[in-house]
């Protein structure tokens, strides 16, 4: 796949295998294939949503991109520079441009630091001098995310979950990054508070010209904030498309099932909806099913799904799917025989 010229972030064949060791000499006997060959681009100014069920490797992806983890394979290109194996020292200046929002507003703020110290940390760590001093800069950012700048000297435990998430967001904004990876930024929050944070993220994007990769498992939230959405299953992307296409005409059976499983607050259509119920849970990433990883739960699966891994192919403009029997696909685009054969 070609690298689109304006891609801010480009991920190619990204892999992360956590070794499993055993025995007397801690021999490696296997690996958790948390991320197993991801390829996608993020264009400047857009929001890419990354959805999938628990354990499918979303967080790992986020941590790989921000290089909190070292990738096992593949390439991460940020602003044209390959950062996949860059040393932490070389990464330091780049980190200003790429920031991460964390899932848990309680554990992502150091309880012993004041808000001022937390939001001011980026300046201190990166050694950035500001015109009117760090304090002023911090207070400006606090105001920006909707917090009272006078709370500069307070501690995180004095804030509610939503406010804490704002503090976390303020910290990522401090150095005016270009790309923000948000790992489940709202899933720990109450519904009514989630909306506040979602709105804030959108406002900030407009205002500051940010690019987001938003990781979430809530399909409705992802639909709300993403321009494009990638669906992950067991360490792989099974479908990636722009929002409208993905939600209105999903091609991968898994996406379809996922969408139909979301409970909808509409009593009238309670029994009217056609539901697809998947069997069982997501298999373990230690021993993922061969070939198409979804075949164990797929109602459309056939022999080929167990032997041939479907490639991620662009079946419609900007709509890539990895499936032998995609739904809603233009008929001519169906390819059942390309791809690698897995030796039995």
């Amino acid at each position, binding site marked *: 796949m070609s690298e689109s010229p304006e891609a801010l972030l480009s991920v190619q064949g990204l892999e992360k295998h956590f070794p499993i060791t055993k025995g007397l000499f801690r021999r490696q006997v296997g690996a958790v294939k948390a991320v197993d060959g991801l390829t996608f681009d993020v264009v400047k100014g857009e929001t890419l949503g990354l959805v999938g*069920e628990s354990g499918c490797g979303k967080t790992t992806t986020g941590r790989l991109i921000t290089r909190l983890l070292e990738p096992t394979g593949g390439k991460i290109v940020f602003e044209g520079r390959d950062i996949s194996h860059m040393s932490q020292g070389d990464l330091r200046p780049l980190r200003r441009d790429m920031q991460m929002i964390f899932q848990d507003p309680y554990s992502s703020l150091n309880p012993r630091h004041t808000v001022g110290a937390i939001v001011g940390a980026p300046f201190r760590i990166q050694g950035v001098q500001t015109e009117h001093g760090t304090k002023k800069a911090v207070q400006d950012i606090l105001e920006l995310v909707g917090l009272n700048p006078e709370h500069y000297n307070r501690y995180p435990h004095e804030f509610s979950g939503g406010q804490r998430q704002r503090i976390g967001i303020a910290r990522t904004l401090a150095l005016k990054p270009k790309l923000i990876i948000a790992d489940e930024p709202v899933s720990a929050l109450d*519904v009514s508070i989630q909306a506040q944070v979602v709105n804030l993220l959108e406002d900030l994007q407009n205002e500051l010209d940010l690019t987001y990769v938003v990781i979430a498992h809530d399909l409705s939230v992802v639909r709300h904030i993403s321009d494009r959405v990638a669906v992950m299953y067991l360490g792989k992307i099974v479908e990636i498309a722009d929002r409208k296409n993905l939600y209105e005409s999903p091609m991968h059976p898994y996406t379809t099932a996922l969408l139909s499983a979301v409970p*909808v607050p509409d009593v009238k259509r309670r029994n009217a909806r056609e539901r697809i119920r998947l069997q*069982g849970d997501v298999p373990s990433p230690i021993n993922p099913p061969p070939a198409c990883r979804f075949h164990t739960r797929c109602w459309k699966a056939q022999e080929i799904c167990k032997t041939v891994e479907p490639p991620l192919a662009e079946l419609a403009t900007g709509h890539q799917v990895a499936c032998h029997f995609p739904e809603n696909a233009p008929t001519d685009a169906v390819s059942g025989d390309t791809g690698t054969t897995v030796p039995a």
Partner: protein
Amino acid sequence: MSFLQLNDLRIHFPTDDGLVKSVDGLSFRLERGKTLGIVGESGSGKSVTSLGILGLHKGTRAKITGEIWLDGEELVSATPEHVRTLRGKKMAMIFQDPLSAMHPYYTVGAQIIEAYRIHHQVSKAVARKHAIDMLGRVGIPQPDRRVDSYPHEFSGGMRQRAMIAMALSCDPELLIADEPTTALDVTVQAQILDLMRDLQQEFNSALIIITHDLGVVAELADDILVMYGGKCIEYGTAEDIFERPEHPYTWGLLGSMPRLDRERTERLMPIKGTPPSLINVPNGCAFHPRCAFEGRTQGKADTEVPELLETEGGHLVRCHMSREERHAIWENEIKPNLESV
């Protein structure tokens, strides 16, 4: 009298920081075969209510007043020993986090067997058969093998199924599910909700489902109770709540949710502020500091506690605004926004 009826239930916790009024004057009724959904923000008193019904506040400093009638018996004033005999058999509960709610040192089977044998004088072998049977019924594959597994050897969905099997092992007439799917993935959540619906129909039990996900209640509930700050602020049938909600908080909840079944809205409409602390409940209407329509209450918002009044056909709302005003706001200001573009 209804199968389950709560009259002015209050559960207060005296703490060092002050009195926590977790549940403050809650009343509702529920018939056999019906499902009640309770929604509300974190800390609004949902779990405390359900534990109160089961009489599980023993050992805490809870002060419980009011009445809980279950099948003609009053439980608040009953002896703890009597309530204990009802637990498991007459009423049972499914908890949110099945991993921590199951004893890590005993097999799943042992825990179900134990539950069954409290109420049935049967041999271990018989109880074991029953346990395997129950596990099969909740859809656990190879139940005769998995019966000897430990909870940590199950996946999240299987644990919740096992939890349900345990709760249902004595055919309880009242089943309370406290956030049964919050810890689960959507696909698994859908499986569990289906299962609960089926089982309820099969046993014809009364079901209370507690959640903060409006989608879940919409799928299951006949009636819905919205809680805020330890009080019921709106109660009605599912249609009432979703089609004709009358409380600003309910509106807020609906406005905060991005929905898959509608067109994508440009902006969400969040409720401002944060949930109240139950120690310093705001004066007057507990919701008024966050209410967008606080100005339309003739200054009563922060002085008077609004009463829970019936608007029509069993639909109850706790709001200072008049029925007409609420209708107008819903029709003109809220509903269009929810469905915009």
